[in-house]
């Protein structure tokens, strides 16, 4: 995949199946963009958590509401937007799942995982009035393509020549 900006957008139903669909779509984009296995896992998990958040907390599992997923590939990162049709929330009000009193909570770890797995993470007011999760992963550094299929090997003159 080149460095031209690319944009993908999909509207998902508020249903459990959308979580897997969103993850699979973003995984394909991430793999095509050159991310390695570990980064793909982290991106896939973050998308999954973002859509679960929209499905459960944002849209309250109401089927008439939609989840809007967008992916942008810029020259240096993959940016993912997950927008719900709920009433929004303030990131600073989300309880810390690592706090002693929350350790045995059965929910509330999704935001934490997205923050841990992505390079950038924020929640902003969305155009629907709901919350928009915006998260990004830096693209892996790529060698300059050479004409001999050897990357940038030989691109610099031998030292000490």
């Amino acid at each position, binding site marked *: 995949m080149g460095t031209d900006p690319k944009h993908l957008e999909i509207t998902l139903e508020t249903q*459990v199946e959308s979580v897997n669909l969103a993850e699979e779509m973003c995984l394909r984009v991430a793999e095509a963009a050159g991310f390695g296995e570990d980064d793909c896992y982290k991106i896939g998990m973050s998308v999954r*958590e973002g859509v*679960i958040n929209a499905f459960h907390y944002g849209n309250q599992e109401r089927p008439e509401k939609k989840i809007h997923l967008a992916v942008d590939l810029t020259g240096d990162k993959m940016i993912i937007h997950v927008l719900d049709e709920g009433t929004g929330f303030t990131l600073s009000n989300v309880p810390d799942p690592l706090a002693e009193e929350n350790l045995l909570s*059965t929910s509330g770890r999704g935001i934490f995982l997205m923050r841990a797995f992505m390079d950038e993470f924020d929640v902003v007011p969305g155009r629907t009035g709901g919350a928009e999760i915006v998260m990004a992963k830096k693209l892996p550094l790529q060698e300059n393509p050479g004409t001999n299929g050897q990357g940038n090997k030989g691109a610099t003159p031998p030292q000490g020549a």
Partner: protein
Amino acid sequence: MALRATHRDAGQSTVVDLSGKITLGEGSALLRKTVRGLLDEKRTHIVLNLADVDYIDSSGIGELVSGFTTVRSVGGELKLLHLTKRVHDILQITRLFTVFDVQNDESNAVRSFKP
């Protein structure tokens, strides 16, 4: 891959062999059903063998915690066995490694229950 769960008796304990993903939907629901089914049968010493579980999301983590607290509430214990690297790392960063009794050897896990 959908989650599969089978269980076998090991003395006074029950080992649940899980394989696949523990995620929102069927995976989490199957784990919940399995643990509650064992409690209904008065099997309160439970080892979850996660050797073939390489993926868990926040819903699956929540279900593990729910299983842990539910078993404890009836005086039992739930232990985890053979974590894969990814499940290990997730439990580490969420600090749940400090909550669960995590074992690497099945016979030790089975022996480690309080009588």
